[in-house]
């Protein structure tokens, strides 16, 4: 890693630095932390495996109704 002060007034060192960056030595690494689908066939396979479970609508109603009750209470008690 070049030091800026070292390189700023030295055209040869600066040119070397540029050449190092142009050489292709620094390459982006493959991202491989979290992977999965690689092509159309694998996406099809994923979708084919979907169990198709329906949503628990009653559970949503409980949350929404609770929220509405909470919003109503201060107005009602006022």
């Amino acid at each position, binding site marked *: 890693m070049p030091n800026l002060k070292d390189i700023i007034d030295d055209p040869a060192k600066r040119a070397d630095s540029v050449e190092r960056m142009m050489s*292709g030595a620094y*390459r982006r690494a*493959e*991202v*491989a932390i*979290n*992977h*999965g*689908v*690689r*092509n*159309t066939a*694998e*996406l*099809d396979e*994923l*979708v084919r*495996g*979907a*169990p*198709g*479970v*329906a*949503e*628990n*609508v009653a*559970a*949503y*109603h409980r*949350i*929404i109704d609770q929220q509405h009750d909470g919003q109503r209470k201060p107005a009602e008690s006022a």
Partner: protein
Amino acid sequence: MTASASLQSLPEFSISEETKRKIFSCYIECLKQACDVFRVDLFDLDYSERELTLAVAEAEIDIRAMFARRSITHGIAPGKIAGIVAFRLSRFKIVHMKESGWENANMHMVQELAALFLARRLFAYGRPCSEKGLLELAYQLSRRHANQETLGVFFDVFAEAA
């Protein structure tokens, strides 16, 4: 290697007819369930087939772009695909409410919740996530800001840990 050379070397990716058909058919079911959740009368809601088709086409482009970032050998995590699909299905003008449904306080979240239901059901189904979490995310999508990355992280990380 230049960025354009890297893109050129990518395999052509497309969503198959089979999967598209499943998305369209499942979307109608998910929309019905989102209406049930918010007690929206099904009569009050129309959906644009054109916008739904275009949303899926846009998601396909997003997935291709994702392949430019992620490695071809390792692929894209299902949660990221779910995030892309949910985002596009929430942004295109798919759901149209009739005047008789305008007074429903939650009508602004119907399309967003339907998008999340579909994405989870078809692409991120192994991941439990709470009803409360999905409602929160639907609100975020509708009233605040969320993009493909945020949603991808939700399906990949938070939903997995739930």
